[in-house]
C-alpha cells in the first residue's frame, strides 16, 4: 500500500510569545521563562512548531497554610513556614518558576500590610533566581493595594501580577504598565469573556506580550470538562488567527485539585476511592495532564510528586521535536 497521507491543518495563527522574569534593567532573575509560540495544537509536532515547552510553576504561600491537605503539608515539611525557603525547595524539586500567593494580606487571614507583602516578595526574589507569579489575596480592594505596592517595589522584574478580573483590571494593569511587569487576566470559563477582558486590557496600552490568560480551572470531578473545552476553543481560535485569544494560558491546577474532598480527606470515605496519598497526587496529575492537552502553557501545582510527574510528561511530550 502507498504511504498514507496524514491530514495536516494549515493554521494561520500562533500563540503569542510571553517572557516572564528579567535578568537586567531592574530584573534580578538568573534565568527567564518564555512560553507560547505554538503554531499547532498541543504537542502535534508533525503539524507545526512548539518552540517552548509548557512549564510548571510551584505554588508557595506567604503563611503556613494550616488548612491545606495533610498529604501536602507532610510532603512539603517545615519549609512552608518560610516562603523563601519554600520557594527554594520547590525550585530544587524542578519547578520552572514560583507562584507566590500573598494570602496573609487577606482581611480574614491576618490582614497583613502591603509593606509586609513587598518584604515577602523581595525575600522570595532574593531566595530564587526563577521568575515569579504573584497572586494577591483575591479580594478586589486588597488585591489592588498589595499588588500595586509590590509592582512599584520590584520595577523591571517582569513579575506576572495575578489576577486581573473585569472588576479590577485597571489598577493592576496600570501598575504593570508603569513597572515593566506582566499580568494574568482571569475570566470565568467562557471564551467571549476571556477575549473581552484581553481587549479591555490591551486597550489600556499593555502590550499583548505581557499578558497571560487564566480561563479558570476546574479539577477532575469538579468541572475540568468545562475548562478543558473552553481552553480547546480558545486555542483553536488562536490558531485560526483570532488575535485576542492568543495569550498563553495558565491553570491553577494545584489550588483547585487540592481543595476537593478526594485530596483532603483520608478517612471515612468509600474504600473504592483507594489509598489516600496516591489518590491525592493522582488527582492533581490527572487534572494537570488533561489541561496540558487542552493547551495549558503554565501549570501551577503543589505537590513535589506532581511537579516531578508533570515535568516528566512535558519532557516526553516534547520529544518528537
Amino acid at each position, binding site marked *: *500500500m502507498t504511504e*498514507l497521507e496524514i491530514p495536516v491543518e494549515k493554521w494561520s495563527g500562533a500563540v503569542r510569545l510571553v517572557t516572564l522574569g528579567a535578568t537586567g534593567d531592574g530584573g534580578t532573575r538568573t534565568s527567564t521563562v518564555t512560553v507560547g509560540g505554538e503554531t499547532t495544537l498541543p*504537542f502535534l509536532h*508533525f503539524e507545526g512548531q512548539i518552540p517552548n515547552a509548557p512549564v510548571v510553576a510551584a505554588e508557595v504561600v506567604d503563611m503556613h497554610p494550616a488548612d491545606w491537605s495533610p498529604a501536602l503539608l507532610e510532603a512539603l515539611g517545615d519549609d512552608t513556614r518560610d516562603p523563601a525557603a519554600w520557594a527554594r525547595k520547590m525550585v530544587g524539586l524542578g519547578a520552572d518558576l514560583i507562584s507566590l500567593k500573598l494570602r496573609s494580606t487577606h482581611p480574614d487571614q491576618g490582614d497583613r500590610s502591603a509593606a509586609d507583602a513587598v518584604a515577602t516578595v523581595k525575600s522570595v526574589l532574593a531566595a530564587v533566581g526563577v521568575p515569579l507569579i504573584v497572586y494577591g489575596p483575591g479580594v478586589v480592594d486588597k488585591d489592588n493595594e498589595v499588588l500595586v505596592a509590590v509592582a512599584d517595589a520590584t520595577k523591571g522584574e517582569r513579575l506576572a501580577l495575578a489576577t486581573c478580573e473585569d472588576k479590577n483590571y485597571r489598577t493592576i494593569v496600570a501598575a504593570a504598565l508603569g513597572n515593566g511587569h506582566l499580568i494574568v487576566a482571569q475570566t470565568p470559563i467562557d471564551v467571549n469573556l476571556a477575549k473581552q477582558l484581553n481587549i479591555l486590557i490591551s486597550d489600556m496600552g499593555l502590550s499583548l506580550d505581557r499578558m497571560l490568560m487564566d480561563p479558570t480551572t476546574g479539577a477532575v470531578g469538579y468541572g475540568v470538562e468545562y475548562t478543558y*473545552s473552553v481552553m480547546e476553543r480558545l486555542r483553536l481560535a488562536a490558531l485560526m488567527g483570532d488575535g485576542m485569544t492568543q495569550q498563553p494560558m495558565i491553570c491553577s491546577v494545584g489550588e483547585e485539585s487540592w481543595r476537593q474532598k478526594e485530596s483532603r480527606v483520608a478517612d471515612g470515605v468509600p474504600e473504592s476511592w483507594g489509598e489516600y496519598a496516591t489518590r491525592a497526587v493522582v488527582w492533581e496529575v490527572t487534572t494537570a495532564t488533561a489541561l496540558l492537552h487542552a493547551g495549558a502553557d503554565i501549570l501551577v501545582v503543589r505537590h513535589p510528586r506532581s511537579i516531578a*510527574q508533570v515535568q516528566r510528561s512535558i519532557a516526553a511530550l516534547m520529544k518528537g521535536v
Partner: protein
Amino acid sequence: MALTGLQIYKLLPQTNCKECGFPTCLAFAMKLAQKGTELANCPYVSDEAKASLDAASAPPIRLVAIGAGERAFEVGNEVVLFRHEKTFYHQPGLVVRVKADDPKIVELTARMVSSYAVERVGMSLRLDGIAIEDSGGGAAAFAAAVAVARSAAPGLPLVLMSTDPAAVGAALDEAGADRPLVHAATAANWQAMAELAKKHSCPLAVRAESGDLTALADLAAQVQDAGVDDIVLDPGTSDPAGMLAAFTQLRRLALKKNYRPLGFPIIAFVGAGSAEEQAAMAAEAITKYAGVIVLDGFEPALIYALMTLRQNVYTDPQKPIQMEPKLYEVGAPTASSPLLITTNFSLTYFTVSGEIEASGVPVWLLVADADGMSVLTAWAAGKFDAEKIAKTVTASGLGGKLKHHKLVLPGYVAGLSGEVEEELAGWEILVGPREAVEIPNYLKSVWKAD
C-alpha cells in the same frame, strides 16, 4: 458519509408501490435520510442498492462491542475531534492487565476488577474488563489462566493478550462465546489470528510497530478481507508523544478523510510506571481518542481519578449532568446550621458544596430544580425566581426542622430577597456571596443563627 434523500431515491425501485407505508419512493427516501424509517421496510430494494446504502450509512469509526451480556461495552462511532463540536459518545473501556503466569493473582485481580464500583454524581462507575497477558507458558497455561479469570469474574469482558495463535486458539475454545477482544494480530501472525477471530466472531486488535500507520492500515485491510469486521487498532506506540500523534492522526483520517481501513476504535496501553505516571498516560488516552485503555494493575486510587475524568470528558457539553433537586447535607448539619439554596447545575452544586466542605461548617444545602442551569442563567431564564425558591423551601419541610428561619440566597439573586420574603411568611432572607469562593468566609464570619 450519510446520503441525502435524493441520493437514496436514485437507488430505490422508483415504482411508488406504497408497500413501505409511504406514498412515494421519494417520501420513503427522505424519511430514510432522516433515519425515520428503515431500509428493510421496502421489500423491493436490490441487493446492490442495499450494499451501497449500507456502506454509505456506516459510521466513519466502526462501533465495536467487546464482551457479551450485561457487562459488554461498545466503543467507536465517534463523530468529532473536539468534544465541544458535538460530544464524545462511547467512553473508553478501562481494563486492568494481569499476567497469566500466576493463577492466584489472576483470580484475585479478576475478582477485584469485577466487583469494583464507585459512586459519582449519582452514577455507579465500574471497570470494563480484564486483560490476561500471555507470559509465554504455552497454550494450555494461557487457556487455564483465562478459565480462572472467567470463573472468578463471570460476565466480565476479557482481552486476550498474546501473539501466539496456539495460545489464543486454546483460550478462545475456553472463552470464545464471551466475545473477548483478541490482542493482537501482527504482520507475522495475522492469517491465523484472523481465522480464529472469525471462527469465534470475536473482535480483533491489529498491532503495528512504533506508530507506523501505513502498516497498520495494511493489516486492518488484510484481516477485514479475511472476514473480520470488528477491529481495534493498536499503532504500537508506548510513549506519550508517539501515542498522541498516532491517535490524533487515526481520528483525523477516519473523520476528515473517511478513510475506511483505519475507521476503528483504538486501544491504548499506559505502561507499567508508577500510579502518577500511569495517570498521565491514561489522562492523555481519555482526552485524546482511545477506545480501550489497558492499565497495569488494580490501583483504586488511580482508577477512581481516571473514571471521574472519563465521566467528565464524555459528558455531553449540551446536556451537563444535573443534580437531583433535593435537600443535601454537607457535613452533619443540625437544627441551627445555616440553610443555603442554589440551583441543580452539577458544576454549581459541586462548586458550592466544595466550598462549604472546605469551610468546615455543616450546612443544609437546598438544590432547586432550575433545569440544570447555573444561578445566573436560571435567574435570567425565569427558572430560579422568588416563587420557585419559596416553593422549594416549603417542599423541603425544613420549616419544622430548623431552630432559625433564615434562608441564604446566592449573591447573584440578591434582588429577589424582598419578593422571597413576601412569599415565605416567617422567614428571614439573607444574601450570601456572589462567588462560591467567598462562602467559607461568609459562613465563618457573617452568618449567625440568632
